[in-house]
């Protein structure tokens, strides 16, 4: 059972770690696709999600 729970813990840590990493190295579309001539509005939660 120790191995099983260790695997679950690792999966959770890896998932959270990837979310932090991707949020760090990626820009929101409203920032990435905004140019000097065109501003892209913040899509918020993309119509899905709490809030």
């Amino acid at each position: 059972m120790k191995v099983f729970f260790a695997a679950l813990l690792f999966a959770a840590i890896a998932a959270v770690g990837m979310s932090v990493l991707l949020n760090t190295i990626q820009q929101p579309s409203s920032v990435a696709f905004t140019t000097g001539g065109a501003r892209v509005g913040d899509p918020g939660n993309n119509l899905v999600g709490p809030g």
Partner: protein
Amino acid sequence: MPSSLSTLRVSIPRALCAAIALLFVLAHPAAAQLSFKPTAESVHEDQLLNALKEGDKITGRISIPDAMAASLIQPAGREWRDFQRSKLPVIGGVAIIGMFALLLIFLLVRGRIRIYHGFAGAKILRFASFERFTHWLTASCFIVLALSGLNISFGRILILPLFGPQAFATLSAYAKLAHNYLAFPFMLGLLIMFLIWIKDNIPGKLDLEWLRQGGGILFKGQHPPSRRFNAGQKGIFWIVILGGALMSVSGWFLLFPYLPGNVTTLQLWSVIHAVIAMLFIAVMLAHIYIGSIGMEGAFDAMGTGEVDLNWAKEHHSLWVEEEQAKGQAPSGNAPRAVPAE
């Protein structure tokens, strides 16, 4: 004369407009096929969509550096939506419910596969800690990925009426987050499984004999010889590796939708992802069945890592001999119990 002049003044611009319109129609064959003006106010969306042929697109001009945003309407998108809403749930339903039905029939007809000679009491190490860790890492991620993925196809039908829109929306949002991020440890698990088990999963002549005898699970007391993994397990291994690789590649494009380059390619990967997922889930149900309630003593392999010696001898006789020769297994004189059935 004045009246003819004024008529001329009116008719020349009209003729010019007609000529320009004709030129426009001739220069754009796709537009020529449309029996109405796409820009007219009276045009309904259905008319417009029905008039568009395979490969047609209505595009706009954009000034942001996202080329995909220029595609406004394309028939392929409608076909993709129809596939997601009508055909995919049927494929998934048949595969998954069909597999459940097959397993139930198999259990009722064949019964649980017992250890023919009973438990020996002596144990042999089947999977080391790291192997079990890798298995459970991949398996636990797979279960969450499968459930959250099935929610996309079946949630609207099965969960929404039960919990209501608010709870379903919240559940789906968190399921989507879990699906997106647990995909990474799943892919890591797949890669490690491939590296640590590939050497024992190369198909050989022995596998043909195993298959010829139905794996020894169709008839009681029959146990074809097998090394560490038999042909059935090798089949599962390659389904997991190849299916998982397809799921990973297609999933990668869905995670990073700007990689495919256009919406049509993205939709193709989405279809591949969904169809493989349904089949993958169905096959894994069979794997879970045979590794738990379907076969006595099988779960210990991934539970504690140690299996009963008689179980190992019956299902992996050649592997037991190899382990005994290396001194890593109890001798062949392990006590044999009375046949269980």
